[in-house]
Structures are given as structure tokens and as C-alpha cells.
């Protein structure tokens, strides 16, 4: 905090990224915040670029709100420095700040009987342009859909209406920068999307926006950049496509998710995990012989139980392939409509070799895709645990003229475990070797 300003200026010239088109709006250098003697944030080095639409994400207690309040000046850093437009934040007067950055705080109390319009007009205090006040207030009311409630008393509003009035108050400031702390609190889905669309529009008009959000999907959908905080530290920063992968989400949020990348923006669905507390299942390597969508349900169930199975051999058009991609599982893939090429079979063999358990999904077998079945038989004879899904029976799935049937009978003879359904298969895969 007491670093000589010329030293800070020197550091500034060093830290400015080469070739950056515009200087960042905010920059934190080794930012630390202690609250009540506890380190809650930092050290964090971060830049918020001009014109960005940044979502700040992280689990509860990760320091999102503290970070935002540090940017607003609401909490003082206990170490490091924050720069706003390349000038230390602490040098700004409150009125100057209020003309640059509008804030939507998480907590807001006003127990006095102001009308909505009077409350929104308070946002104009520091703008010093009385002639523009009326239009600014009217525009803010319009943008938040509060025009009809302008004459209502604040104390008589619902939680959602209050939240929108608060956002309107901040919009009335007409600042180039907006900092919002969970602005979707208390809002129903309709109004959540309205506010996010409003922010998108404001961003399109050239404003810089940093918003703390809880909902990863809303963040992925609207934000151009995500800042992921974990236990007071910066875990990741980048575009939604870069940041939102199952591994990072599992590390930070301790939740398994599937990432769907069909559209331009990633979409997450949680895996409603029933995995046991210990992580044994995750460490056990399981390989699934899949294809034709026969393994999709099994794969979902395995992931839900904490496995990260490898998959193959499937064609890239296969719906099993899509499932594998959604959960970012390792998959051996082959070109469609032709027998598996030898190098692909080799790749599959090595994965099968590394696996502790091989599960054979109820795939339709023709002459082109028998290779995995042969590998499984060899592995089974060598003592590896192989689980066969038997519904529908192999006779109905044999398009290879009896070869597949023969291989399956040999597998059973060699000690492969037969499972009537997905649940039994998962159970067989989960059992410890001594039980098997």
C-alpha cells in the first residue's frame, strides 16, 4: 500500500502487455484482502480489459464478492494495488468513482418511504448534469421495466422489483463501467434473462461490465470472458469455451458436469452424482466397448458413479461418441462405414490393456467391428475382468454370421461376468477384485 508511486509507475510499464490495444480498465497487482484477520483474497493479478463483459464465478466463499468490493473501493486491500485506468484506485475521490463505475451491490436496504423514481434519481447525485437527470432516470426506468412502478413506494415492492429498482438506480449513473454483485438475486427466470439481455445491450454500446454470477450457464451464455475464483485465488481466466471444462469445474466446484458444445457457447449439465465418498471408482480404469448408441445409458451411469471410462471403438458420427465428448472421456474413434483400420485397433488394444475392467455394451456386431470383441476375449483369458451386457441377447445382435455369438460364448466360458442390465454392470465394475 505504501509503495512509492514511482516504483508503482515503473512496475506499470513492465506489466503492460506488449501489443495490448487498449489499457485495461481495472488491473490488480498482488491484490490481497484480509477481513477480520483472515486472508480472504489473494494474491491476485488480473486485468479487466476495456469493453469486456466479464463474469466472475466461483463457489461460495471463494472471494467473488470481496474481489468485486475491492474494485468498487468498498473494502481496502491489505496488500498489493488496484489500478483503475492506470491510476491507483485509492487516489480516486468517491464522486470521481461514481462517474466511472456504477455498482449494483448484493445487499441493499432502504427502509424509508421513497418512491421508485425518487430512489432511482439518487443515482444522479455525482453526475453533475442536472439538465440530463430527467431523461437519465426515465431511461433507467425503461431499461429495467420499472416505468409503470415509478410512483410506487420502495417499501411496498416485492424483492424482485426492489432488485430492479436498484439496478435502475445504478443505470441512472450512466457510467462507462458497471460492477454487479449477483444482480439476478431475487429475480425469476424471465427477469434474470431480461437483466442479462440488458447487460448484453449495454456491453454492445461499449460499456465494460464485470458481474458476479452463480449460474454457470447464464455466465457461459452471456459473458465474453470468465474469471474463476477458488479459495481467494484466481483459478482461471478466459473465454467460456476455454474455462468451462469438466476437469476445472470438478476441481473448483467439486461437482461433475457434462459440457455440451453443440452451440457456440458451452452448456453445462450437472451429473447428479451418486458416487461413493472415496474416490476409488474414479481411479479404477474402465473401458467400454461401445457403438451405435448401445452404451449411452451405461456411460451416463458410470460417470454418475464417479468413473471416467475410456470408450471404443466408435465412429465419429456415433451417439456414443457424443456422450464421450460431453463428459470429455478418452475415446478411440474410427471413420464411419468401413472396417476399423489396424492403427485404430492398435490404439484400442493399448487402452483395453491399461483398463482393469472391460465392459462390453450390447452392440450390434458385424464383420467390421469384431476386433474389440477378440481383444476382450484375450484379456479375459489373461485374467482381466470382463463384463458382458446380455440384453438384448447376442443372437439378436449378431450380424457377422455366428462369429460374434461364438466369441461371446467363449468369453462366458472364460469367466466373463454376465450382467442383465446397466445397474448390474456398474456393480460388477465397482466390485473390488477380491469380491470378483
Amino acid at each position, binding site marked *: 500500500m505504501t509503495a512509492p508511486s514511482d516504483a508503482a509507475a515503473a512496475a506499470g510499464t513492465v506489466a503492460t502487455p506488449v501489443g495490448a490495444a487498449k489499457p485495461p480498465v481495472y488491473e490488480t497487482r498482488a491484490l490481497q484482502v484480509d477481513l477480520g484477520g483472515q486472508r480472504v483474497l489473494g494474491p491476485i493479478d488480473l486485468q479487466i480489459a476495456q469493453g469486456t463483459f466479464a463474469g466472475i464465478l466461483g463457489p461460495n466463499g471463494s472471494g467473488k464478492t470481496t474481489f468485486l468490493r475491492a474494485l*468498487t*473501493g*468498498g473494502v481496502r486491500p491489505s496488500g498489493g494495488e488496484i489500478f483503475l485506468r492506470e491510476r491507483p484506485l485509492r487516489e480516486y*475521490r*468517491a*464522486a470521481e*468513482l*461514481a*462517474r466511472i463505475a*456504477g*455498482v449494483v*451491490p448484493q445487499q*441493499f*436496504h*432502504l*427502509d*424509508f*418511504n*421513497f*418512491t421508485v*423514481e*425518487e430512489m432511482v434519481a*439518487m*443515482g444522479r*447525485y*455525482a453526475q453533475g448534469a442536472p439538465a440530463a437527470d430527467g431523461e437519465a432516470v426515465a431511461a433507467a426506468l425503461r431499461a429495467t421495466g420499472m416505468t409503470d412502478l*415509478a*410512483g*410506487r*413506494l420502495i*417499501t411496498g415492492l416485492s424483492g424482485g422489483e426492489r432488485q430492479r429498482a436498484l439496478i435502475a*438506480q445504478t443505470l441512472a*449513473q450512466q457510467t462507462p463501467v458497471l460492477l454487479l454483485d449477483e444482480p439476478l438475486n431475487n429475480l425469476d427466470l424471465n427477469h434474470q434473462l431480461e437483466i442479462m439481455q440488458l447487460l448484453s445491450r449495454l456491453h454492445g454500446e461499449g460499456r465494460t461490465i464485470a458481474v458476479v454470477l452463480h449460474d454457470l450457464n447464464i455466465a457461459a451464455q452471456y459473458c465474453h470472458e470468465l474469471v474463476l475464483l477458488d479459495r481467494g485465488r484466481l483459478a482461471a481466466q478466459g473465454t467460456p469455451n476455454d474455462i468451462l471444462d469438466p476437469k476445472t469445474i470438478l476441481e473448483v466446484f467439486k461437482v461433475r458436469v457434462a459440457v455440451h458444445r453443440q452451440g457456440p457457447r458451452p452448456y453445462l449439465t450437472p451429473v447428479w452424482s451418486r458416487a461413493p465418498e472415496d474416490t476409488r471408482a474414479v481411479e479404477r480404469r474402465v473401458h467400454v466397448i461401445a457403438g451405435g448408441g448401445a452404451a449411452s445409458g451405461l456411460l451416463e451411469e458410470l460417470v454418475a458413479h464417479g468413473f471416467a471410462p475410456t470408450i471404443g471403438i466408435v465412429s465419429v458420427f456415433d451417439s456414443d461418441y457424443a456422450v464421450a465428448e460431453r463428459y470429455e472421456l478418452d475415446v478411440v474413434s474410427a471413420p464411419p462405414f468401413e472396417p476399423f483400420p489396424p492403427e485404430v485397433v492398435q490404439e484400442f488394444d493399448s487402452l483395453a490393456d491399461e483398463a482393469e475392467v472391460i465392459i462390453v455394451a450390447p452392440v450390434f456386431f458385424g464383420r467390421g467391428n469384431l476386433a474389440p470383441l477378440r481383444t476382450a476375449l484375450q484379456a479375459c483369458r489373461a485374467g482381466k475382468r470382463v463384463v458382458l451386457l446380455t440384453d438384448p441377447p447376442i443372437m439378436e445382435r449378431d450380424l457377422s454370421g455366428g462369429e460374434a455369438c461364438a466369441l461371446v460364448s467363449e468369453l462366458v466360458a472364460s469367466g466373463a461376468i454376465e450382467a442383465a442390465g446397466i445397474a448390474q454392470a456398474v456393480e460388477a465394475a465397482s466390485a473390488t477384485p477380491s469380491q470378483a
Partner: protein
Amino acid sequence: MATGHDRRRTYRLVMAALVAALVAAVVTAAVVGAAGMSVGEAFRAFAGLFRGGTDATGNFPDWAPRLLLNLRLPRIVLALVVGAALSTAGASFQGIFRNPLAEPYLLGVSAGAALGATVAIVWKPLTSLGIYTLPLLAFIGAVLAAFLVYRVATIGGYTSAASLLLAGVAVGSTLTAITSFLMVATERDLHTVVVWLMGGLTTATWNKIWITLPVVVAGFIYMMLMSRRMNLLLMGEERARELGIDSRRTRRNLMVVASLTTAAAVSFSGLIGFIGLMVPHIMRLIVGPDHRRLLPATALFGALLLLVADTVARTAMAPAEIPVGIITAATGGPFFLYLLRARRGV
């Protein structure tokens, strides 16, 4: 529903009504009293004052103009000034602390003034300083108490409203205990102290007004200049800062000014309760919480209310006087309870 437009109209109506009521109250207060002349005589004498003094027609006793000028008018003006001071200070305290129950009493300011006044009464060597000893010491007591409370409640540069009110109550109780001890220890002056504590405008003089008025007027001007800031402070220090004011400094300055205003009033009038609590409360219900309208309306209504109360105090049991603090408390307390029951929330 109270829209902004309705509120502006209500405000204009209320201000007009208050001004009219004030004029009527001043005239009434001037012509009623225990001086032994009829209301008619007093009214003619009062009207005569505006025409330049005595009247040879004998429509009123020739001592009447002097009585009006030196006794009744100073008392009327002091009532107006003290009433306005207590109520605007109350409105400011309530705004600063976002608490409609804040008022000079709760913040220890009045207890400080009381202790100063008691010291002035019981410690004879001080009396040699003349008639201003008591108000001066009351003033010093009030200001010192306010600063003591503020210092106690400020931890690491931050003053929370809760700790301030708690500190106010604690400091107030301690000072009141000292005052009580002084009263008991010097029984001789017990009556004088008790009468002062009960509050009264009996000893009003123009000199006292010339001391009090500038402080109260300056305080009011400052509060009006800060009225938009006070509105922002109602949303809390952090939100007010986000919208562009230096919340801590604004709060501290307003607190100093409100304390000075209170001290200026209390030092000459003793402890007159409930005006500072009740008047802003009632006005907030009528003209809304915006301080730009609340403060002027509060000043006028506070002035009116104390003048009416004082007029009742000196005429109800004439020629004996009831301390005006008893009147304000006796009517204010029940009325306040009624308000609490009738309208939950502020």
C-alpha cells in the same frame, strides 16, 4: 399511491398551511397571558408595535408595548428557534443513523448539556461569570458529550450506527448519574436544577436569542446543503459512497452540526423532550423522507409545536407556569405510541 408529483403538491400545501398556522400561533401567543390586560388590549398593543410603539388613544395600558417587546416576543422567538433547532437536529440524527428512533437524547447530547447546566448551578464560583454561565456550560457539556460518544463508537476509523447509539446511551447514563449525584450532594439548588432539567423558556431574552439564532440558522443552512447527501446516507455508508459521496466525512460533519444545533437550543431552554423525535417522524409521514422537503417542513412544524406548547405552559395554570418539557412529553409520548400502533414501519 404517493407519486413524486403528488408529494410535491402535498409539500406545497403543507408548507402553506404551516406558515399560516405559525402566523396565527405567534399572534395568539403574543396576546394571551397573565399580565392583566384583555386580549383585545393586547392585540391593539401588538398591532401598535408595527406602527412604531406607543399609542396615545389609551386603547391599551402604556406598559403593554414594553411587556410585549421584552417578555412575550423574546419568549415567542426563542420557542420558535428552539423548536426548529431540536426538530431539524432530530431529523438529521435520524437520517445519519438510518434510524427513526435516533434523537439528541439517545446520543448523550442532552445528558451532556444537563451536566454542564447542573455544574453551573451548583458550583458557585462560576456564577460570577454572569447569566451566560449556565448556557455556556450546557453548550460545552453537549458538545463534549457528542464527541466523547463519537470517539468511543469509532473503531478503526469506522463508526457503526449501532455502536454509536449504544455509546450514546452508555455515556448518557453515566453523565446523568453524575448530574443526579451533584443534585443530591447539593440539596440547596435541587429545585433550580430540576426546573432547568424539566425544560422551559421562562427566562427568554433577546440576548439569548442573538446567541442561539445564528448557530441554529447556520446549522439549518448546512443541513439543507447536505440534504441530498443525507438522502443517500439512508441507503447506508457503502451505497452512499458508491453513488459518489465521502460517506464517513459527511456523516461526521452532519453529526457535529446537529450536535451544535442541539446544544445551542438546549443550553437556553433546558431539556425539552420528544420534539426532536416526534416532529420529523410526523413530517416524514406527510411529506415523505426526502430531506430537501423534510427539513424545511420539520423546522416549521417544530417551531409551531413548541410555541403552542409553551403558550399552553404559561397560560393553562396562569399565573403559575408548567415547565414546557412536561407538556411536550405528556402529549408527545402518547401521540408517538398512537403513531407506532397506527402505522407500522416508517
